[in-house]
């Protein structure tokens, strides 16, 4: 603590020391087996026991799987073909393939529409998931929800067009006003969007074509795994921004904003999702203006989104709490305002910390979409338990159907999990 620091010369090495090679590793598969499977008597015994159980499992299930029948048209025919041998009756999957994927009411000549929507989804979601892709692709991402809505539900194209115009009007109003005040810009944006939607409603009514380009399909006719995918994707993409807003609101210094967020989060977390779904099915209609007839699909989306956004908010709050106070102070000391500090400094870091938790909730939410089968929507589980198992042809084919449903869910959920691990590695810049 004196002049020494200011006057001493820092030691600087001019060249690196030569590296010495690490000792040779003794390897080979035999050594690996000995080291990992039979290192001691106790471990060797455990290995043998484990191998025996593996044998039991596979000897029971493999013949059943490999001996599966794919071509029968009913369970009894399937049993005839098997003739007493052990074997699965996979033909239920090939025979009811379209019902499992699209439900039993969706017109079969229109299956290309949801399929196209799914293909386009990959293009739309790519620039969101992979931050290295050119940002211009986000243009299509913005367009996609309206396009997908039109593809799946069909009907006059004016609906989605005016919905899009309303969002654009809202955005323009917002960006014009935002330099004055955020609250004013938000209110202005909402008002502008609502005006466009309201006027668009009349114009759309006047322009209603005699026969629309794409046949209109009511929500009641959606079903199968398509319904699970639609609910999952819509609810995850809506609940993420709402969850961020709730998490920030819960940290707010404004008592009313904070109070609303806390009450919302605690209430929604304290209620089972199934209760909310029954509310959506039966009671929510009372809260909307009479005759508005808000679609059941939208009511379910609202409820699942509410539910998962409350959980996501808590996960993100954990991420926010994990950031050192110095990050907030550094952002403040540079003169960034609240919105800039959150958007540029705090949220990117907090979201990165929260990735495992958010993915956890996204995966859980996606699987919870099967709960809609209890309010008599025919998602994949609803289809299996309802029309397929109830039919005389396939009464009693449980294993094959539920295995297939599990496989579909597993593929999607495993994909999400793998993506999140890649994202964590991609964003690991702190070199801790």
């Amino acid at each position, binding site marked *: 603590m004196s002049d020494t620091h200011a006057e001493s010369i*820092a030691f600087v090495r001019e060249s690196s020391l030569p590296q010495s090679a690490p000792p040779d590793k003794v390897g080979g598969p035999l050594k690996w087996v000995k080291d990992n499977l039979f290192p001691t008597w106790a471990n060797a015994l455990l290995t043998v026991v484990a191998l025996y159980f593996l044998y039991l499992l596979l000897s029971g299930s493999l013949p059943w799987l490999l001996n599966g029948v794919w071509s029968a048209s009913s369970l009894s025919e399937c049993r005839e073909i098997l003739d007493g041998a052990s074997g699965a009756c996979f033909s239920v999957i090939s025979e009811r393939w379209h019902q499992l994927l699209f439900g039993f009411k969706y017109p079969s000549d229109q299956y290309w529409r949801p399929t196209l929507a799914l293909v386009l989804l990959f293009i739309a979601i790519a620039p969101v998931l992979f931050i290295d892709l050119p940002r211009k692709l986000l243009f299509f991402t913005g367009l996609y929800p309206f396009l997908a809505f039109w593809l799946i539900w069909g009907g006059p194209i004016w609906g989605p067009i005016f919905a899009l115009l309303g969002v654009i009007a809202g955005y323009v109003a917002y960006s014009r006003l935002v330099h004055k005040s955020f609250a004013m810009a938000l209110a202005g944006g909402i008002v502008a969007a609502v005006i466009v939607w309201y006027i668009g409603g009349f114009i759309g009514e006047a322009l209603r074509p005699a026969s629309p380009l794409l046949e209109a399909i009511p929500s009641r006719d959606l079903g199968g795994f398509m319904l699970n995918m639609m609910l999952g994707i819509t609810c995850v993409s809506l609940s993420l921004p709402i969850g961020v807003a709730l998490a920030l609101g819960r940290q707010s210094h404004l008592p009313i904003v904070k109070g609303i967020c806390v009450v919302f989060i605690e209430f929604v977390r304290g209620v089972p999702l199934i209760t909310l779904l029954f509310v959506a099915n039966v009671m929510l209609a009372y809260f909307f203006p009479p005759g508005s007839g808000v679609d059941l699909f939208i009511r379910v989306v609202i409820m699942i989104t509410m539910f998962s956004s409350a959980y996501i908010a808590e996960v993100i709050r954990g991420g926010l709490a994990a950031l050192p106070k*110095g990050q907030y102070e550094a952002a403040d000391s540079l003169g960034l305002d609240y919105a800039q500090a959150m958007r540029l400094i705090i949220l990117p870091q907090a979201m990165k910390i929260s990735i495992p938790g958010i993915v956890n909730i996204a995966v859980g939410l996606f699987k919870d979409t099967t709960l809609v089968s209890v309010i008599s929507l025919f998602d994949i589980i609803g289809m299996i338990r309802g029309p397929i198992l109830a039919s005389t042809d396939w009464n009693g084919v449980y294993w094959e159907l539920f295995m297939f449903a599990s496989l579909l869910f597993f593929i999607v959920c495993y994909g999400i999990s793998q993506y999140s691990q890649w994202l964590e590695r991609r964003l690991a810049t*702190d070199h801790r």
Partner: protein
Amino acid sequence: MAETAQMKVSDEVAIRIDNMNKWYGAFHVLRDIDLTVHRGERIVICGPSGSGKSTLIRCINALEEHQKGSIEVDGTLLSSDLKNIDKIRSEVGMCFQHFNLFPHLTILENCTLAPIWVRKTPKKEAEEVAMHFLEKVKIPDQANKYPGQLSGGQQQRVAIARSLCMRPRIMLFDEPTSALDPEMIKEVLDTMIELAEEGMTMLCVTHEMGFARQVANRVIFMDEGQIVEQNEPEAFFNNPQSPRTQLFLSQILGH
């Protein structure tokens, strides 16, 4: 030493603190602080831990709120108005004990972020300015690395460059070398000395007494939330007036 200490100090007032008081709950942290800093002045604030020296400089850019008295920075009175606070913060640079670089951004992005978003500087121009200051703190070759890849001393120099990119008129340093190895302290102090030689108005909380002797035109000693003594460095170190200051100096210079 002699020439640096005699750099011109203008009559223009940079910071005027008048009878400022601050409480944490019921705890009285700062008592009746009166301090006027002129443009170009370099002030070192020292004192035992808990004496309120960090709190004092954090009040100047409103990282802490004061409850009584007034603070005027560059003619702007610090009030609770957010626009006012943001204006003062963009004029006053600050370096922290733990650097507080943004770990998710590269060194260059750390430096250009505030100029681009607060000052609305075009990206290219902001990057040129950033490279200029990174050269000044002698780490232009690290511009595309992330803070986690740099040593503590390098990180603190980046933090200084990041503040300078906003072209502040006043720099605050909150124990900038306390978290560093002895080897790295020198490189940070050298950067600060260079800054002082260019006439930057500086308030520095530090225990580096060598730095204080060489650079400061005034040393302030604080204890229990009060300014106990302030003087030119020669007089302060060689002839401390109050017994509290004498005790502090004997302990800190004794070894």
